[in-house]
């Protein structure tokens, strides 16, 4: 196997640039959350089952990354072998988990993860030239095109997480963990800026446009999450406050995805910044002391979204 040294150096430079661009307070918070996750992981992988669960989760994450990659042609243009680059990327990403497994004596899981990375890398690319994609139900209105297109792209993954939320009703808190992943996966639907022609098609001023967008998408999201929350409360009535908190935080986070899309709007462009803010806000669903961060970001991005859209929609004021 040829080692793609140039790509590995490039990944380190990318990682360095990413870290340098994070504002210090966010970096401290991020490190705190990562340290907490590391400690939780350390105690979790003590048992073989825990180790296998963490390893399996990591492999699933790598698989979802692999299925969404679009750099196959770029790597070919750089005259490198795509699967070796993929493999090196996945080894780098799963390094901390493999180290954790090895330190706790889970050698078999660490080895399986190592081989799993090779397996994932060998899955045929590219995927994105599909003509149909996941079937989207007609009940989702055309106006919610972000959800429609997101479902078409990641439908099976979203469906698996959503079904997992129902299966998780059998265990305490498991449903919320799956709903958290489901909500996080939904953020991917709001990462692309639509063309100006679509933005202007409803002929609404910026404020009303944002209001309508929030209304349509939050209604859809609430319709999908409410059944899980209600069933959870029916099974465990004592935890009604937890279901309510989770539901409210999930709604606020989806609102944040939408506001962020328009706050950082570029016609036809992909939104690449704001990932740390999103991560912190999503962490607020699991760590209640971070909830004020979500509220602060909501207000900040609402103001920014209005300002960003006004030059395109001012004629409808």
């Amino acid at each position, binding site marked *: 196997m040829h080692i793609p040294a140039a790509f590995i150096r490039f990944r380190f430079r990318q990682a360095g640039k990413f870290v340098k661009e994070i504002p210090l307070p966010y970096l401290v918070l991020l490190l705190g959350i990562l340290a907490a996750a590391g400690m939780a992981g350390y105690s979790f992988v003590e048992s073989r089952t825990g180790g296998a669960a963490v390893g399996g989760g990591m492999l699933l994450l790598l698989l979802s990354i692999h299925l969404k990659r679009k750099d196959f042609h770029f790597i070919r243009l750089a005259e490198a072998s795509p699967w070796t680059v993929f493999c090196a990327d996945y080894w780098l990403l799963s390094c901390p988990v493999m180290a954790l497994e090895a330190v706790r004596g889970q050698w078999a899981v660490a080895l399986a993860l190592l081989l799993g990375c090779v397996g994932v890398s060998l899955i045929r690319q590219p995927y*994105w030239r599909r003509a149909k994609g996941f079937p989207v139900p007609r009940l989702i209105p055309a106006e919610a*095109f972000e959800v429609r*297109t997101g479902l078409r*792209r990641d439908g099976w993954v979203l469906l698996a997480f959503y079904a997992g939320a129902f299966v998780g009703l059998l265990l305490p808190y498991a449903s919320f963990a799956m709903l958290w992943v489901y909500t996080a996966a939904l953020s991917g639907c709001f990462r692309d800026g639509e063309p*100006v*022609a679509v933005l202007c*098609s409803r002929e609404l001023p910026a404020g009303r446009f944002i209001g309508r967008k929030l209304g349509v998408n939050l209604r859809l999201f609430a319709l999908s999450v409410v059944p899980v929350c209600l069933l959870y409360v029916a099974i465990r009535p004592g935890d009604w406050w937890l279901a309510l908190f989770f539901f409210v935080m999930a709604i606020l986070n989806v609102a944040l995805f939408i506001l962020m899309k328009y706050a950082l709007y570029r*016609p036809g462009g992909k939104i690449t910044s704001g990932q740390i803010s999103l991560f912190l806000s999503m962490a607020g669903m699991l760590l209640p002391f971070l909830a004020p961060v979500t509220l602060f970001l909501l207000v900040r991005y609402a103001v920014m979204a209005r300002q960003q859209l006004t030059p*395109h929609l001012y004629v409808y004021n």
Partner: protein
Amino acid sequence: MFTIEHLRFGYQKGKEVLKGLDLSMETGKIQGFAGLNGAGKTTFLNLIYHFIRPSDGKITYNGHPLLRREVSYLEAENYFYPYMTGREYLELFPAGGGGFDMERWRQLFSLPLDDIVESYSTGMRKKLALLAALKPDKPVLILDEPFNGLDLESAHLLTMILAQLRTGGKTILITSHIYESLAGCCDVIHYLSDGQIARSYTREEFPLLQDELQSIMEERFGGLIAGLIPSQ
């Protein structure tokens, strides 16, 4: 009448793209705009659509300031939301008073509307964007380089559609880098140069425009090309 008075605009201070452009156009006609790269054709169209605000001047349509609600705009470069089907894209645009028979348009343009747009060719994307511009049935239609990427058959079809729209009373503003495309469909061609309309040519004067363009090109590039490519 469609009147543009003293239109000024610059992307940078002191560097004006349009320098007090004046133009009076008859409505219900196809008005072509020609000019070299950077002459300001797209800027001019963006100003008419209110994408950008002029530093001076006004645009009036039938005696009142032109509203964006009266205009449909097909941009030169068309991009689409990832994983969206052609049908979903068209459903985002409300149909105008004249209605919009999506099935008949689909047949006319041979578009696979239920496939995602990423699987479309350049020409198919252009046709989809054109349908989206036609659907709202606005009285003014701006088409920036509509012939780009179209095959011979589709380009001819577009010329026929434009003629039909003119019959229906629409005012169409169109740009193209290809003289033949403009000459094939326009009633008037306006030549933009140095931020102004240098001259407007009626159908009878089109051969004159072609001769003038030919001589401009010969003067500009003839000697350079002769020096660049050695004769055998």
